[in-house]
């Protein structure tokens, strides 16, 4: 039996592992994909205290090595459900099951999709969720960015240096993202704002060749683009735990700053928790709190 099983090896989960190991608790971290989570998609981190210029990849490696060197065990298995009884918890993966005293759910979130036909089959053939990964493929080609938050604005600015034209498509007429970035975008000759509009159809042969865009006023237009970068937010990955912990209407696990869920001995940390600021530093903070609370619960 493990003291603590942590689901997710992103910054929240690995920080929890570090704190739990330093308290000499036995720790198993279960990760469905790669350690590091979403941060590996960030080329440079500039807002983490005392690490003003580090790549997401290096950050992920550092925190992973720190947790492993302290004795955390990490297995790459996808968790499918948790069984909660008073005396112990059982975490089931696609490969097996693990018994423990406390669980920390730190599964983060996934990119929200547009929900259009052929979206999945065109991923990697024009549809992208990572401008910094895939922008280079669209040198001097027309592209579109969908969304109104900081990610969408920053993606558009990044792509404006590479692509021929960047169409920024947003369903409202104002942006949630920072005004300073909007101002920078307005100064670019090759950025065109298409507001009050949504993408309603993907046009493709083998690769994406264009999109149909519908305006609130009922009009539609077809725009030729080779790339479509989607940045319309993220969705938490908690659906497999809905039977053991309470979720809010958007699917986030309901927990305050103590990271305690409604279920005794089950804690949550990071982007999948109800909170207002989802940043690297708040994920790490959650990890520390969740581990501390889990340690308290065990003893």
């Amino acid at each position, binding site marked *: 039996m493990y003291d603590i099983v942590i689901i997710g090896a992103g910054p929240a989960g690995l920080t929890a592992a570090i704190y739990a190991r330093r308290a000499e608790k036995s720790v198993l971290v279960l990760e*469905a*994909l*790669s*350690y*590091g989570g979403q*941060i*590996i*998609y*960030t*080329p440079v981190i500039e807002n983490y205290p005392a690490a003003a210029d580090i*790549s*997401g*990849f290096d950050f*992920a490696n550092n925190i992973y090595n720190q947790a492993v060197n302290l004795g955390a065990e990490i297995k*790459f298995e996808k968790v499918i459900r948790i069984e909660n009884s008073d005396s112990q918890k059982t975490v089931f993966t696609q490969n097996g099951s693990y018994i423990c005293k406390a669980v920390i759910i730190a599964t983060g979130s996934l990119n929200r999709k547009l929900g259009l036909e052929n979206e999945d089959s065109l*991923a*990697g*053939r*024009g549809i*992208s969720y*990572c401008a*910094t*990964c*895939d922008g*280079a*493929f*669209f040198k001097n080609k027309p592209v579109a960015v969908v969304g109104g938050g900081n990610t969408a604005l920053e993606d558009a600015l990044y792509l404006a240096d590479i692509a021929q034209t960047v169409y920024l498509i947003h369903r409202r007429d104002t942006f949630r993202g920072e005004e300073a970035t909007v101002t920078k975008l307005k100064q670019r000759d090759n950025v065109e704002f298409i507001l009050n509009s949504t993408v309603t159809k993907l046009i493709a042969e*083998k*690769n994406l060749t264009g999109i149909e865009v519908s305006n609130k006023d009922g009009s539609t237009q077809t725009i030729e683009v080779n*790339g479509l970068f989607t940045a319309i937010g993220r969705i938490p990955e908690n659906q497999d735990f809905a039977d053991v912990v309470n979720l809010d209407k958007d699917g986030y696990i309901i927990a305050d700053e103590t990271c305690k869920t409604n279920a005794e001995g089950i804690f949550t940390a990071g982007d999948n928790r109800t909170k207002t600021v989802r940043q690297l530093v708040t994920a790490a903070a959650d990890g520390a709190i969740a581990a501390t609370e889990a340690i308290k619960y065990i003893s």
Partner: protein
Amino acid sequence: MAVIKVTTDNFEKEVLNSDVTVLADFNADWCGPCRMLKPIVEEIASENPNIKVVSINIDDEDELADEYNVASIPCVVVFKNGVEVQRSIGFRPKNAIVDLLGE
């Protein structure tokens, strides 16, 4: 077997004319998920001596990326007898990459 670095010059010889199944990893140094995938691809290469694993840097080999419609990385393509039979995009866990080989 070690991972072989492939360029436009040796692509035909190493990939298209290969007698064995080829797993081609299209990547770039600046791509975080590609760097995450790299050790997994290396493991697959050393554990499967019956296949050939090659690495293609898309910055140096943009013609190959273009020719094979690679527009998102990491991108793993499996070739059998010079023909693409499987493709996966983005970081995938090791078992998913091994499954692409279909062996």
